[in-house]
């Protein structure tokens, strides 16, 4: 299997992780009163989960130099 296919599978996994993070029931867990550094819990959760997802994608996309297949 080529590097492209391996990485493709990891990207699919990241997408599935994102689907889980931004969906019921995880969203419902944070849909409660409370705040982190003054930011309501749900908003803080969504933005940090989003940032983590982007960081994962950046890491995966940049982890090797690309070669043309």
């Amino acid at each position, binding site marked *: 299997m080529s590097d492209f296919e391996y990485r493709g599978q990891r*990207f699919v996994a990241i*997408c599935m992780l*994102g*689907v889980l993070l931004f969906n019921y029931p995880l969203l419902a867990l944070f*849909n409660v009163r409370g705040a982190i550094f003054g*930011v309501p819990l749900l908003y803080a959760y969504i933005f940090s989960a*989003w940032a983590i997802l982007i960081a994962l994608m950046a890491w995966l*996309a940049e982890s090797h130099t*690309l070669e043309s297949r």
Partner: protein
Amino acid sequence: MLHGSVIIFTSFAYLGLLFAIAYYADKRADAGRPVIANPYIYSLSMAVYATAWTFYGSVGRAASDGIGFLPIYIGPTLMIALWWVVMRKILRISKQNRITSLADFIASRYGKSALLGGLVTVIAVIGILPYISLQLKAISTSYFILVQYPAIVMPDEIGVAPIRQDTALWVALILAAFTIAFGTRHLDAAEHHQGMVAAIAFESMVKLLAFLAVGIFVTFGMYDGLDDLFSRASLVPKLQAMMTPLEGVAGSYAEWVWLTVLSMMAIMFLPRQFQVTVVENLDEKHLAKAIWVFPAYMLAINIFVLPIAFGGLLRFPDGSVDADTFVLTLPMAEKQELLALLVFIGGLSAATGMVIVETIALSTMVCNDLVMPVLLRMRRLRLNERPDLTRLLLAIRRGAIVLILLLGYLYFKLAGEAYALVAIGLISFAAVAQFAPVVLGGIFWKGGTRSGALCGLLAGFTVWLYTLLLPALARSGWLPIGLLENGPFGIELLKPLQLFGLSGLDQITHAMIWSMLANLGGYIAVSLADSPTADEHRQASVFVDVFRQTGETGGARFWRGTASAPDLYNLLARFMGSASADSAFREYAAARGHRWPETSLNADAELVHQVEVQLAGAIGSASARVMVASVVKEEALNIDEVREILDEASQVVVYSHRLEQKSRELEAATTGLRAANERLQELDRMKDDFVATVTHELRTPLTSIRAFTQILHDDPEMEMEQRERFLAIIAKESERLTRLINQVLDVSRIESGREEWQATSVDMKEVISDTVTAMSQVFQEQKIEVQVSTPEKVGEVLADVDRIIQVMLNLLSNAAKFCEAGTGRIEIVLHDLSDHLRIDVRDNGPGIAASDQLVIFDKFRQAGNPLTDKPHGSGLGLHISRTIVEHFGGRLWVESRRGCGACFSFTLPTRAIP
């Protein structure tokens, strides 16, 4: 003061700056040094996704339901994670086939169907109109509010809707002129608009900076940071509920999920996203950067949406100010003139960016996939005979741009007032989501057919018209509102907002469920029921197997017929101008090592295919096919022939795999042979050494025999005693010679494998006592003390008894040889170690240096210095012994230290006693 003139002047100055950037980028591109060949500019150009909707509408949405604006950006992030798999494929397909628009992509996939391309174009244009009207509304509203400064007045309050609509008309016309200048200055074969991309990337920076500026001003200028802002908001009961918006304000999770799905589709299939991501892409490698830079951009532009929304709700608690305008009205209320102007420019850049790219993409579609196919089919126009059609193509595109913007304005006038910004945009999202099944199905599933795609698209689009567009028009008063409340003709089941009685969902979710059901169902069912034509089969394989094809000419192998190169050239020149045609032909010839036009080109399948692909870039794949077919004589392939070609291709792949395997095997065999050859050479060398050593060893006793015989012969008077002594030496040397020869024969027999071993049960106790007895004469002569210790009962070993005796004798004679006469002492110990026997033969001689312990088992090697020490034997004995022991599954080794004697040990496996 913010006079209208100041605002208008600033706006035009900004547009002028954009134009300058575009002009500069185009010049650089012409000079072959493109500024946009950069992954960051590519990523920023994708941010054309963030329009006035994002800039003004997100805050409006957030002010009403907290997080309802977020799926529009989280969805694309999730989709982009799949781009590695999906978008790379679309990019490769589009580059190979010179796809220049979404309509072209779909038409080309389903057998270069002009009908399908036309349908996609119609859907795209109608579907995008609400979205364009949204931009016009945003620009005219923001202008209107800003010009009232320092008062904050909503346009609706003072009954200015008609005037605002006039503003929108002006905006539409100005943008049309601007887009024409941007996008249709000349005809590019690959539909690249490098200047436009550079300008769009710049606009993305401007809108991001403007939005962040407002966000920072509201959060840290008006309030004391996020903490302060949110804690003040939580004191207001109405805002408290928005801290936990799900289930309450934001509606159900279903809506959240559907908005996410919708946005996932939008990021792929909005015509302008397809334009900047696929058509304007210069290098596939840029995608890797865009995969994270673009989502990061979306995150950044959304960070301050909630603070601005809460800030606005706190600042204007009475609800007199439309939340869609908070971004602008907050700085105005705080008397920040410059910031307000910056916001206006940011909103302008968000809206203009969208309008420019969207209308260029749509105009390409309208021209290539709607107008040209119709014109080319009208024989009366005699388009085929016109020498230069480039001006016509440009004129069609310019007309299309003006028309699309005017239609956008018309939609704004008809329906724009009834909805908030986001709601207008979502209607467009739902329209372009209809392309998802045919595109995604088309690149992964070969079974999709033209009829299936047509059915799916038509069904989905019809449902969209009925459930989204129709209600929008009805709510604006252009259709009787009873249509929504009672259904058409009073049929309750057909109410557009509760189709077939499905109720309790918001409008978008409801429309998406029904349209996707109709679309997917139609596409799959009809495709399965249908059998593809040759063209469809070929294109399906070109698209789905794009990564399996080599080179750019995957399609050429499907063409059979005759053509003439000058005809092809003229065809290309008519549509693209002779300069472009010249360079295309020159490149084609150069790639094959010819010079054109010095040598004429062979009009083979490859050239025909190349011309068709080039032409597809200018007029779309369906029209290109028609035009090429008009100048060449083509033999139509039937479905079986296409299948055959595809099968051949797959067989070639199989063959090449087999060939690779064969060559790998060959390589392995070669390596093996080389090793064998080296071994042979080594053996040859060893044989030479062996012969040399043997000869040397034989010569020593022979020399002494000859010398003594000579003496005896020459001196008959010799005393008897002397004579006997000499004769004894001769006898002894002959014996040594005989022994040596026997050993050499042994070695050669053993090594050649000719030795016949006779394995019988051997009693090692007997062997030891026999050999000690045989050697007793020697031991006595040298006064060597011998001690034997064996256990009572030992297991039997399976071996050749004569050979084992040979080994024992060799070890004993070696021991005797190295023992000092008189003080010598030899110890023989037999150990029975259950599965094998070990025999130790220990002497108290000088011992063997560690460096010699390994080599003494080699042929003709003896311990010590061969030049100075007197030789003690042939040097073959230990070698032969080790070979014998190893043959019977045992080991022979030595343990010794210099000065402490040596202990030779060998093992032999015992026979399992039955």
